[in-house]
């Protein structure tokens, strides 16, 4: 196994990874570097003169009220992640027990995830219609005289989107919990039963800790995926009413492709990246306290 062999291995490695790597460099690495450069410019849509403006965009960002509002909205949006994780854990627990038509039930819960898209956004828009929509009609019927305005009022719009998002993510989280639950050895559960542990206590002290790596994974990937999403909000509310549903990712899109402030949009997008990084790092540090491998 001489140098020759090692060189051959490396060439073969490049041969296999190369085609994909070219695309990753072209469509991920170069744009990322380019975007970092744009952050320091005043580049506007199609405008030929571009100036280096140093940290002006960053300063502007820190004085931008909508930026702070967008962070706040993003945090409210992210609440949907733990909520859907918790609910999906409960559903997975039940579906992991003996039930009939297991695969049909699984498919029913999973359906929203596969049909992601603007279509569901518009369906929910009508369901949430404040005056005549079926959701408020139902709430009135059960005696709530002044049901929420959902997507139409500034203080409820973000929570309405949370509801849609919990619904959307539930099936995906459930599938992954189901897989994790199936890996738990039955011996462990038998032993707990012998020691007299029952029902909720088994779940709380045995099952939940055992699936904690899965919970961690769902939390971290769910938060990252959610923070990047804006299509569903762009389709339903375009960030409105007011700026009540302008989340960071949508704020980037609006600045770039509605106001054509591309340098500024690049700056916000890097702020978004740093928030993702921060969430990931905090989670990695925090996981030691509650994730059991």
């Amino acid at each position: 196994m001489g140098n020759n062999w090692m060189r051959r291995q490396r060439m073969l490695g490049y041969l296999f990874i190369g085609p994909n790597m070219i695309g990753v460099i072209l469509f991920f690495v170069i744009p990322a570097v380019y975007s970092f450069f744009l952050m320091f410019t005043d580049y506007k849509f199609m405008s030929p003169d571009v100036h280096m403006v140093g940290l002006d965009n960053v300063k502007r960002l820190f004085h931008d009220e909508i930026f702070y509002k967008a962070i706040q909205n993003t945090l409210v949006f992210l609440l949907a992640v733990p909520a859907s994780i918790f609910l999906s854990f409960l559903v997975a627990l039940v579906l992991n027990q003996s039930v009939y038509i297991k695969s049909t039930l699984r498919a029913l819960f999973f359906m929203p995830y596969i049909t992601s898209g603007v279509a569901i956004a518009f369906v929910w828009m009508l369901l949430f219609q404040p005056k005549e929509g079926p959701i408020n009609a139902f709430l009135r019927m059960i005696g709530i005289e002044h049901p929420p305005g959902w997507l139409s009022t500034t203080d409820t719009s973000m929570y309405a989107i949370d509801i849609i998002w919990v619904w959307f993510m539930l099936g995906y989280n459930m599938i992954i919990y189901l897989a994790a639950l199936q890996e738990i050895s039955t011996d462990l559960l038998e032993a707990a039963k012998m020691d007299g542990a029952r029902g909720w206590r088994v779940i709380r002290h045995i099952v939940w800790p055992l699936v904690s790596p899965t919970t961690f994974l769902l939390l971290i990937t769910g938060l990252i995926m959610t923070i990047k999403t804006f299509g569903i909000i762009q389709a339903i509310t375009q960030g409105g009413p007011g700026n009540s549903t302008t989340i960071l990712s949508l704020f980037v899109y609006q600045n770039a492709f509605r106001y054509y402030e591309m340098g500024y949009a690049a700056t916000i997008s890097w702020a978004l990246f740093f928030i993702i990084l921060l969430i990931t790092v905090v989670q990695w540090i925090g996981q030691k306290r509650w994730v059991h491998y």
Partner: protein
Amino acid sequence: MTVTKTLVTFIMLILGILMVVPFLWMISTSFKTPAEVFEYPIRWIPSTLQWDHHIKVWTGDKSFGTYYLNSLKISIISTIGATFLSAFAAYGFSRIEFKGRNAMFLVYISMMMVPPQVLFVPKFIMFEWAGIYNTHWALILPGMFTIFGVFMLRQFFLSVPHEISEAAFIDGAGHLRIFFNLVLPLAKPALATLAIIDFSWHWNDYENALVFLIDEKLYTVPLGLQNFILENNVDYNGMMAAATAGIIPMIIVFLIGQRFIIQGISSAAVKG
């Protein structure tokens, strides 16, 4: 025992149906008259089936047929490219040992954290410069490269026993032969899973289409749907007929490939 089992099944069935109620309401509304849309209690079965909303969606100058063809073209080409290119790279990352491999893999991992928003503006400028902005290539070319796909298949290839390739090495086969004749056939289920998941991403992709396409003739289904709804925003029945048109293909793909999708997602997540 059977009583509890039946009861639990029944409760879960009700919850499961609640999950798909928005779709049922959507389909039912697309066949109603305008007066019936917000009737409460909800009229699930319209008094007479109104087909004209669906006809409106599929005919006329903004027919969903064009959007379907555009989406199909983009999704199919991207998916085939992405599946093949991911398999190739995943083999390199999992079954060939060479210097620099781990560093390259680190680049891949770090790119997963970069939000697409960071890439939108520079990609817009690059595509403009390369002349592919506002063409289907702006979606197809980047769509052929999926980092998730490389991860998922790498995970699968790692689980293929090394003895298989060792035996082939002794018989004089090289990596290319092993990849095409041994590993790839073994990976068929994993490839099918990736292809289905990838197809659904491309089919549902609204954000990239929103940024890179302006010409209405080039619109994909999600953009066409948005367009239709913006122009018919008082016609709730028409909106729901359009939404139905947008969702049906994915429901069909899901019903056919359910097993693959669910297995693929859970194995990629749990073992990864």
